[in-house]
């Protein structure tokens, strides 16, 4: 134990700043992820079983039409060349044009992305604001086997709501608040009040699952020696839990629950269907049903970038919360 600590200390001395190494590794990782994303979206069309051009043109198209399409798409050129021009297009911001509507894909996405991003980031904010205090509070109140009833109630409610998929919850919310009570709009994105139900539908299940993770991590942290030592400093509860427990439980929570924040994007994509939300989700479903490949490629690319952004944010947060993760190679 002492040996490792000394070694880590020596490493910290040798490097000018731990954040520099961290940043470099992160950037390297980001580059690798970007290349992977581009390869995946490019490969998507190549992997279509049979003749992609025939699949794209549809069964009714003539042989000439198919040949023409193949040429237009460059599918008759060597794959390396195809990839080169695809990547070069991406660098210019050219994502191709929609088969279906003829619009530039970049424009299509630019019109849709803000709605999806709005929904996803609001939901993430709600998740963090609900789950972390809730989980920590329940952990503190039920520590050492106190308040069995609260424990059971918390487990039951979060278990139930956490198991309800976003789209099911969305449907039920519409049923109750829009149709029965008429209090909130059931669809559309025109007004601020139209945001409430979609955000609730996306955020609630994840909040419940994360609250359980927070609670479990908090229970672990509350049993640590350093928390006993902090208790020995006789601090007020808010300082004890806020300063000594919270940051450490967040590291545990984020290493496990950070993935869920990116996963929330998936929930957003599906929930958009419930509320006729004009985001990327509804558009990409349409594109897949119409085999509109440029739009699918563009959407996957953008969603992948969003997920990367979220993962990077989580990593930076981890680095801020726990200095040990900066020198570690990946999550502990």
């Amino acid at each position, binding site marked *: 134990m002492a040996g490792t600590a000394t070694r*880590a200390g020596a490493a910290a001395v040798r490097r000018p700043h731990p954040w520099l190494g961290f940043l470099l590794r992160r950037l390297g990782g980001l580059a690798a992820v970007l290349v992977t994303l581009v390869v995946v979206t490019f490969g998507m069309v190549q992997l279509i079983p049979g003749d992609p051009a025939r699949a794209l043109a549809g069964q009714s198209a003539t042989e000439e039409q198919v040949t023409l399409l193949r040429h237009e798409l460059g599918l008759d050129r060597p794959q390396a060349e195809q990839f080169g021009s695809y990547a070069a297009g991406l660098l210019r911001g050219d994502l191709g044009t929609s088969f279906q509507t003829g619009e530039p894909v970049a424009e299509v996405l630019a019109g849709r992305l803000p709605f999806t991003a709005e929904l996803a980031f609001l939901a993430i904010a709600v998740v963090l604001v609900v789950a972390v205090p809730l989980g920590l509070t329940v952990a503190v109140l039920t520590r050492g086997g106190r308040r069995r009833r609260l424990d059971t109630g918390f487990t039951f409610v979060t278990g139930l709501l*956490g198991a309800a998929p976003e789209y099911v919850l969305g449907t039920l919310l519409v049923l109750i608040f829009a149709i029965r009570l008429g209090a909130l709009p059931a669809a559309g994105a025109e007004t601020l009040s139209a945001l409430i139900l979609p955000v609730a539908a996306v955020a609630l299940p994840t909040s419940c699952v994360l609250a359980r993770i927070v609670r479990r991590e908090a229970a672990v942290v509350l049993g640590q020696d*350093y928390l006993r*030592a902090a208790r020995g400093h006789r601090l007020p509860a808010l300082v004890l839990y806020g300063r000594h427990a919270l940051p450490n439980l967040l590291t545990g929570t984020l290493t496990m629950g950070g993935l869920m924040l990116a996963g929330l994007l*998936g929930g957003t994509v599906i929930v958009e269907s419930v509320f006729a939300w004009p985001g990327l989700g509804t558009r990409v*479903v349409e594109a897949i*049903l119409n085999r509109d490949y440029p739009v*699918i490629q563009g959407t*996957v690319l953008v969603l992948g970038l969003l*997920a990367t952004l979220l993962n990077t944010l989580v990593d930076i947060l981890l680095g801020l919360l726990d200095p040990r993760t900066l020198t570690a190679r990946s999550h502990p």
Partner: protein
Amino acid sequence: MIRWTKGLVLGLAGLALIVLVGVVAPFVWDEAATRLTGAAREGMSAAHPLGTDALGRDVLARTLVATRLTLVLTALATLIAAVLGIGLGTAVWVSGARVREVGLRLIDVMVSYPAVILALVVAAILGAGGPAAVVAIGVAWSPAFARLTANLAASVAGRDHVATARLLGVPPSRILTRHLLPNIAEPLLVLISVCFAGTLTALSGLSFIGLGVQPPAYDWGSLLDTGLEALYTNPGEALGPAIAITLTGVLAGFVGDGLAESADPRRAGPLRRTGKAVSRAAAPAPEVPQDALLVAEDLRVSRPDGVELVAGVSFTVRRGEIVGIVGESGSGKSLTAMAVARLLPDQVRAEAAVLRLDDLDLLGPAPDRRLALEIGVVYQDPAASFNPGLRMGGQITEVLRRHRGTGRAEARRRAVEALESVGVTRPEARLRQYPHELSGGLRQRAMIASAVLPGPRLLVADEPTTALDVTVQAEVLALVKEINERDGTAVLFISHDIGVIATLCHRVLVMYAGRVVEELTVADLREGRARHPYTRALLAATPRLTGPAGEPPATIPGRPPAPAERPSGCAFAARCAEALPHCAAEPAPPVPSPGGWAACHALATKVSEGAS
């Protein structure tokens, strides 16, 4: 080894019922589910409990019939995810170090992407439909299995029994099947049930947005999709599949929770609290020396089930005195110390006739300020007892800043002085460092500096040198002695090592099975005047640097009784060479000596014989 908790049983029984529905429903209700009636989009009624759909088909029957397809697809996707993932994880783990590292990071990245994005890609390639959705979701979940398998395998492979098996010449395939897989099976089972719930949700979600099961086939997700359109006219059409999806997910969650709980030793056996943390026991207070600083009379620490871990301990610590408590694991020495410091774990409770530090009553609602300033605590594991996320400076000065109201600059100046006085080099720089950047010895010095900084009247040290190397231990012991001599701080020092106690302390309490069996001066201990048979046996069992070499120290037959099995008399009787017939039945009387006392029947008999 699975414990059958209520949730696990409920979850499994519920899932079994749903599987039964999935098997039976298509035979029984298929006709009702497909028959077109004139009654389109009717509300809930006796004939159609959930109403009818746009073509007049019974929604309840359709929901029940859809169970089979939904379950089959979900199970297939889970199977793909598990087989692919576990295979990948094993492959990554058995390959060379380089490949393993790259593979693990790749899996890490894959896990961090939402399954839905990958599902969209697969759906785009294979076209919308049930099989494509199954492949998509299965593939999307496989990295989670791969990561868990690789991580678990790595952690199990690091255990000594695997290394031993390799040395014995056990073939690699047998190591996998005998030593690795059985030890990682439970977490994988938990993940399988979590994955089942997740794939159910995701598959139904794909069907719901039109990318999964295509008409005329239908699953819960596609039923929910058509139900959404009819939400205004017949809410039952959406309610049926919504409830089915959620219920199945909840039940799978129960199974996952139950398995995780039964695999996690931390959660074993919930404990119930019975009362306040420290309360007063009813017993008269005997005489106490004039210069006593800490007084404990009849201190008891018990588990929630009432079993006493510390069974009536009385002692005093005088001003400026170092009192050592020595005992083996389970003797209750640390609990005694933590009860004094009011830092007992949540699960146990303490009571006493008297427990006070000078004029501060430790049984009542003692003010935090006085507790923090008057009792300093040094813990066993300096690596674990500093908060890893905070710099040393903030942690060392916390008590001064909070309870003395000392300013930041002044507190840091005094922290630097304190660190210097305990022999920490470059103290200013240390304050800016994180705990993990210091060596074990430095951390323990910093811990002592932190404990004595507010100028406590009593220092409670709980095995502070156990985690340290012998040369560092000697330095830390010298440090504690120096603080005691310089500042007159009284010390309650806990150790399992009677040598350490003999080196440092003035007076010694020997604990065995929750009781103090002997109290003696350190001079008596060092000069071989210990009188209790346990103390003498412990001394004989301790390896020494002098005396006969080349042969092992004397042994003590048997082992201490478990807390619930302690006799009402002397707990050492069963192992004692001098035990008399009544030793275990009757509490041993304390036999006084010039410097202390020993609780022993045999000794009492000897003394009374000597007197007569």
